[in-house]
């Protein structure tokens, strides 16, 4: 099958194929046409142009077909690219085609490659047939036979053999086999598979060390970064994991799964700017693909809201608000029939509304959303439910929010993490008012503190912490004034413990990371200036 959006290109390649003796050639101009064919029959070879105009690009097609299991492993998938775009566009993709072909190409090149593909595919036939049927013991057996009988395809057979072992859970055998391979030669893929097994077996430190070496030696191997980030999350180094993923994204930004993993990490790390950026990237990458859904829009809006909550810069806030409003309009327009989306977008409309939108600023509007949510608990997704509850609290509709939380808790009692989040929102409603109250108390405290009335100051800082428990400034001031109080021996042990506890802030690691970087840069600058 030939996939290209230009009919004259298809005609010319088809002409070449015909004169090379290929009689049956299917043509497809768009991704959807190609998808229809690929689901109907098995092709020997698919030649697919990377750039398919407005339709999905070649790698998005390949991804969809592979993940949905529509493309037989017996088919050779060849990506056609402009000569110089290969390393820029294709360098680091998770779904690798079986081969690339640079265009324009001559007939002898095509003939040469066709012979090569068909010979390889016929040698690998028994393995791929077993893989298509998910018969892994047969696949392993076929791979062993190929290794012994056809030295030409030994490398391919070895990879398939490891894949078959891992699929059967025979990790010990796979590990032995990989070690034996690596003793002879350094093979990046074998290292990666070995570390993947180590991660599966919980040997995290070993895997972390190995993966760090691997990405140093093979800096374009994005799968190694992905796995390293997974390990770093498991060993509780979320900042490092975010840094690792950002390196992978620099090399291969077009993976939605990686962008999402990065956004979640950045959001957990409090880096809302990076998170919002990645969520926006997902929306634009998903456009027209199997990944397109209202979820992408919701993620961007949610992340923007978190960002808005922590901002003081009014001009920036207005700009973010405007962006969010535009996105919200698109969401409403593109998914008019999803009940969850309807409730979600109403809540966000109320949240983002300015004074001109009298309908949405009316408390009755929010109350009606709460009521509608109560009546459609089954249609409301967990993420949207949390958004609505949070917005209700933030806008001061505590009673309506409490009612909704009660019913949601009942309805989702199986889902522990969701109920936990609900309880958190209910126990700690961080509303805009609460935040400004904390700000005011904090300002009053500073006066007391300046007047060296540490007892009063400590009390007031403690009060401010009730409203804004994670505000680094208030935490530090509370601890400082407590310690100064201790100087006058009026501090209890429990106050001391609390000081230690809260000063260990969730942003501390981030601070030390930044500090280390600044020190390193400082040394470098000094060094350069002196030399």
């Amino acid at each position, binding site marked *: 099958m030939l996939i290209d959006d230009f009919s004259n290109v298809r005609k010319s390649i088809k002409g070449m194929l015909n004169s090379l003796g290929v009689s049956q050639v299917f043509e497809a101009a768009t991704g959807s046409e190609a998808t229809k064919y690929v689901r109907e029959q098995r092709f020997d070879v698919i030649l697919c142009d990377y750039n398919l105009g407005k339709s999905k690009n070649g790698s998005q097609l390949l991804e969809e077909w592979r993940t949905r299991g529509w493309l037989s492993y017996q088919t050779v998938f060849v990506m056609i690219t402009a000569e110089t775009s290969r390393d820029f566009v294709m360098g680091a993709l998770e779904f690798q085609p079986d081969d690339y072909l640079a265009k324009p190409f001559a007939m002898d090149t095509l003939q040469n490659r066709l012979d090569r593909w068909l010979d390889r595919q016929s040698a690998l036939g028994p393995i791929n047939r077993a893989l298509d049927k998910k018969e892994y013991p047969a696949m392993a057996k076929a791979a062993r036979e190929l290794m012994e009988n056809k030295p030409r395809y*030994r490398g391919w057979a070895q990879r398939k053999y490891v894949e078959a072992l891992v699929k059967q859970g025979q990790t010990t055998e796979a590990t032995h086999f990989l070690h034996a391979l690596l003793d002879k030669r350094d093979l990046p893929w074998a290292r990666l598979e070995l570390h993947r097994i180590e991660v599966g077996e919980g040997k995290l430190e070993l895997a972390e060390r190995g993966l760090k070496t691997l990405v140093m030696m093979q800096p374009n191997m994005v799968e190694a970064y992905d796995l390293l980030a997974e390990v770093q999350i498991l060993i509780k180094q979320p900042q490092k994991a975010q840094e690792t993923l950002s390196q992978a994204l620099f090399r291969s930004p077009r993976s939605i799964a990686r962008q999402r993993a990065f956004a979640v990490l950045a959001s957990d790390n409090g880096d809302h700017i990076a998170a919002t950026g990645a969520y926006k990237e997902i929306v634009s990458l998903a456009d027209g693909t199997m990944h397109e859904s209202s979820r992408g829009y919701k993620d961007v809006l949610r992340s923007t809201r978190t960002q808005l909550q922590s901002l003081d810069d009014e001009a920036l806030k207005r700009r973010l608000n405007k962006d969010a409003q535009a996105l919200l309009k698109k969401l409403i327009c593109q998914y008019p029939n999803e009940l969850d989306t309807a409730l979600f977008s109403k809540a966000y409309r109320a949240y983002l509304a300015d004074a001109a939108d009298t309908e949405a600023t009316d408390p009755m509007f929010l109350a009606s959303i709460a009521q509608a949510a109560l009546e459609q608990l089954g249609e409301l997704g967990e993420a949207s439910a949390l958004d609505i509850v949070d917005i209700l609290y933030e806008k001061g509709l505590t009673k309506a929010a409490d009612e909704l939380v009660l019913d949601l808790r009942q309805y989702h009692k199986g889902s522990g993490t969701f109920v936990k989040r609900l309880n958190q929102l209910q126990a700690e409603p961080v509303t805009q008012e609460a935040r400004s109250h904390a700000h005011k108390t904090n300002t009053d405290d500073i006066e007391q503190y300046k007047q060296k009335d540490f007892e009063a100051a400590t009390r007031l800082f403690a009060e401010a912490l009730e409203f804004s428990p994670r505000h680094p400034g208030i935490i530090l001031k509370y601890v400082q004034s407590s310690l100064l109080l201790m100087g006058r021996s009026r501090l209890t042990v429990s106050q001391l413990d609390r000081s230690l506890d809260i000063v260990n802030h969730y942003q501390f690691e981030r601070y030390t990371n930044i500090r280390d970087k600044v020190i390193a840069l400082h040394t470098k600058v000094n060094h350069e200036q002196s030399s």
Partner: protein
Amino acid sequence: MSNPVDMHTIMAATVHDVKNALSLIDNELREVIDSITEREPGSAMKLNRLRLEAGWINNDLVHMLGLYRMNTDIFRPNFDEVLIEDVIQDATSRYQQTLASLGINLGIELEDPDTAWVIDPVLIEGVLANILTNSIRYTADRLDFRVFETDVGLCITLTDNGAGYPDKMMNFMSETPDPGELSFQNGSTGLGLYFCQQIAQLHRQGETQGYIRLTNHPEHGGAVFMLWLS
């Protein structure tokens, strides 16, 4: 342009455009040659010379992009285990027509046709294409690729039957370990060899790393290019 990095990036993008245009020109030329070879062999020969020139320009552009990447630290190899026969075929296929019209015979001989090696196939293909363009210019009427494996690594040689490398070039390669100066003395040929050496050195296994050697054939005196990969 206040920011020099921007300038580099613009240059790199321009080089890419020129390279794409060049590849279209080359393709058109090939089609024209195909259609006139029988009627006008003389013109076809001239056009083939043009294609060879296009190949030279292409190599120079590849070197410029390589310099750009080394400069911006995005020169990163992608290693994979591949069949050496495939790499040599890919490097030679675009020259088949030119070789035929210039009356040059190309031989490819692998001691073991199933030899596979862990290399960056795109970079090595570039090295071989680079050397091939050079050898086509200086050979009499034969070019031979030979591939063999020893205890120290894999060796790919390209031998021609021309007048051989000038002494100055061979000495330069063996005596100065830093080939940077080479580019200034010998123009683009030197730059090409500098890149070949850099790419060979990226291929390492344990303590050893790849390298290139230039010699002349002990019997007929033709140039022998050797690429050792570990």
